[in-house]
């Protein structure tokens, strides 16, 4: 009964390739997020969607494109992968994005660029 699930768990690919990461939540939340965690464990928000609408778009290269087909899904497509994209990407969800509601995280997708 995984609440927030991401696939794949590991992704190893060559520089220049295009790849996608999928995220699904079964908590009934209406807000979903993508975070990037670097090798020093620092977490940086990338995107957030509320009811399929993009509400947070941080300074992320436009090679990264999120897509939310419905409230329960938020996918991340990355074009022309670069070495600096190597990181762990976390999907999260919350109810309403309000301050009182905590986020629930997936287990992460470990992306390694060769």
């Amino acid at each position, binding site marked *: 009964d995984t609440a*927030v699930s991401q696939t794949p768990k590991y992704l190893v690919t060559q520089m220049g390739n295009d790849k996608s990461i999928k995220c699904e939540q079964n908590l009934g939340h209406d*807000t979903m*997020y993508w975070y990037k965690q670097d090798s*020093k*464990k*620092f*977490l940086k*928000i990338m995107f*957030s969607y*509320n009811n399929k609408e993009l*509400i*947070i778009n941080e300074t992320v290269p436009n090679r990264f494109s999120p897509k939310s087909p419905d409230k329960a899904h938020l996918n991340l497509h990355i074009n022309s992968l670069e070495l600096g994209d190597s990181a762990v990407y*976390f999907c*999260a969800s919350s109810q309403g*994005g*309000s*301050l*009182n509601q*905590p*986020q*629930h*995280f*997936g*287990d*992460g997708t470990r992306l390694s660029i060769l």
Partner: protein
Amino acid sequence: AQSVTQLDSHVSVSEGTPVLLRCNYSSSYSPSLFWYVQHPNKGLQLLLKYTSAATLVKGINGFEAEFKKSETSFHLTKPSAHMSDAAEYFCVVSSTDSWGKFQFGAGTQVVVTP
């Protein structure tokens, strides 16, 4: 604007001794504060949250935190460390002027020695 500072990047404790993880925040508005734990190769799990109710908040696994507005602090404590507490801990703040944006601290790695 909001920010959060975790004062220790590394904390080492002996099993059975108290744990103290320090967190200071700044926020223009009444903040909500959270502590998350991240075990190796896992996503973040909520330990506890403060949302303007009781200033002493009890969480899971014997952790608790105290909100001190005068000191702008939200330190996390546990009376007796267990080996399973070895993990990365994140202090997080959100506030009304930053809908959907959760500001993460840089993390504190906890090492527990037998």
